[in-house]
């Protein structure tokens, strides 16, 4: 046998493989169980009453859920668009050319939302909006989500940008392109997969957020997670399973998309 397989055998430890399976089971089992039960025709946990879309139909017909889903999508699209735009501009400014004055400070500021526990971000935003007199609603929610989403959009965008050789900028500059031309004709087109990937992540983060939305959304701007939380307080219904499964599917779809775009990124280079 070849040397490679021998060293692989030496490097493996008994039990690490099974532990990995346990780890993945731990991560996925609850999600799988919820999805399976969302198709169960009966309310029972112990009985399988046959396959059914009933709970999905009911969830769609529930005006609370429907409105909340619409709000969530609206907020996520707005916040993700804003966060992606800001993150793209920040990435180009920070990563192209010699370090700016205060570069380190700017970079840590961009990742600050990741460092602060979400509950603190939530109550800080609440206090802030109340203090400056912005009523709680779509404006406060979109603003808070934009701030929170910036680092998530920034990560794949900056990763992609660092993968683009700086000589391309120099070559374009050498070929009579102004800085605006370089950004428009070279950087943005080449960064596109990273920008799309950043948008996907920002979109999911906004869609998934419960804690911040719970504090800064107003009566008319309740998002889906806030609505689900309210319903789950009353009682665990299969309807919740159905909505949860749908959200699961959306998340996996977007993460898959973001991952796929990121992979394409590495293949280009």
């Amino acid at each position, binding site marked *: 046998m070849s040397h490679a397989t021998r060293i692989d055998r030496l490097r493996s430890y008994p039990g690490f493989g099974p532990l990995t399976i346990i780890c993945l089971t731990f991560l996925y089992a609850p999600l799988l169980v919820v999805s399976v039960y969302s198709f169960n025709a009966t309310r029972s946990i112990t009985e399988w009453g046959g396959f059914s879309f009933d709970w999905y139909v009911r969830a769609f017909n529930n005006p609370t859920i429907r409105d909340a889903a619409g709000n969530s999508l609206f907020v996520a699209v707005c916040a993700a668009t804003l966060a992606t735009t800001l993150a793209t501009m920040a990435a180009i400014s920070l990563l192209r050319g010699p370090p700016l004055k205060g570069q380190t400070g700017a970079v840590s500021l961009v990742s600050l939302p990741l460092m602060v526990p979400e509950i603190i971000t939530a109550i800080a935003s609440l206090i802030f909006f109340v203090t400056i007199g912005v009523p709680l609603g779509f404006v406060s929610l979109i603003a808070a989500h934009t701030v929170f989403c910036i680092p998530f959009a920034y990560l794949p965008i900056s990763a992609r940008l660092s993968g683009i*050789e700086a*000589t*391309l900028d*120099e*070559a*374009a*500059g*050498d*070929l*009579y*392109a*102004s800085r605006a*031309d370089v950004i428009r*004709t*070279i950087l943005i*087109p*080449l960064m596109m997969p990273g920008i799309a990937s950043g948008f996907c992540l920002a979109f999911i983060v906004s869609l998934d957020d419960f804690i911040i939305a719970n504090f800064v959304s107003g009566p008319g701007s309740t998002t889906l997670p806030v609505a689900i939380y309210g319903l789950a307080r009353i009682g665990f219904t299969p309807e919740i399973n159905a909505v949860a499964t749908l959200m699961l599917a959306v998340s996996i779809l977007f993460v898959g998309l973001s991952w796929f775009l990121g992979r394409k990124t590495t293949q*280009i280079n």
Partner: protein
Amino acid sequence: MKDMATSLDETQVPPATDPLVAKTALTVSGAVKYYPNAPMPALNDVSFSIAENEFFTLLGPSGCGKTTLLRSIAGFEDLTSGSIRLDGDSIESLAPNQRPINTVFQHYALFPHMTVAENVAYPLRRLRLDARAIERRVAEMLALVKLAEMADRKPAKLSGGQQQRIALARALAPNPRLLLLDEPLSALDLKLRREMRTELKQIQIKTGITFLFVTHDQEEALAMSDRVAVMNNGQVEQIGRPEAIYNAPANEFVATFIGETNALSGLVEKTGSGAAQVIVLGGIALAADADLAVGERVGVSVRLEKVDLRPPGEGAVDAIVEQTVFLGTDTVVHLKVGKETLQARLQHTDRARPVPAPGDHCSVHIDPGAATVVARSNR
């Protein structure tokens, strides 16, 4: 001594593009560049000028400052002091995109998201030429580099050599006043590199554009250039035509960096009437320039192919063959002359004389005019 070599070059063989006669394209004077946190300057008082239509090469080992110099001319770096003039006008206050200078980058830097034609059209679009003119110029350029059929491909689908030509076509398209080439052949394999060498030279002649070529490969420099500037430690060691650089190196660095040479120690025996005589290897008399003093010790460079082996007793000094190294078209013979060592390169075309074997006795002859004094003691 630098001056000596240059004047020698210019008096003996006046070049077609003599910078004193032809119009000057680029002048670099007193260029100094310090990088932050580096104790030594990357450029230390570099001055030279390039004539119009000249193929000028900066040759030197990596880290000698040649790339820094090129990047300063292109506008990617600022000089600490000194000036860069193009056609007599200072260009230092111009951004790279305002300088009528284009660069062929070492790794081509083709835009991966654009087709070959779009790449070549890029500078023309930035210069706001009209669409028909751009189309015509792109076709012309692709024909020049013989890649017209690749117009609609993406750069990733091309071979290294083809990418190289596209980079060249793109840089030539706007008809720059000066073309900078940053080790453009270093990423190609040997065979392709030789082909591209000829082609580059032809394109330069055809387009009449001034080329400033940077390389660490002496063969490349000697093969293509009208003039070569040899750089080391941020300084220009010698500027001259390839033959002059090879045959009359100005100092020990140039002598050893270009071609293979025997660095010998010599003693000045007599001087007078515009020449001096230097004795090396305890018995070979060589001619040297006049301003040497009798009794002075000097360093002498003798090219391997200038060393002539003769049967014992026929040459000036006797030698013993220590080792022979077969190199295909020729053989290098390592000799012991007294306590000193010497190498000779024998061409195989000379069938009359067999290649000696280790242990053989022979004698050495060197033409008096074959040597160059490259170093002298300060006494």
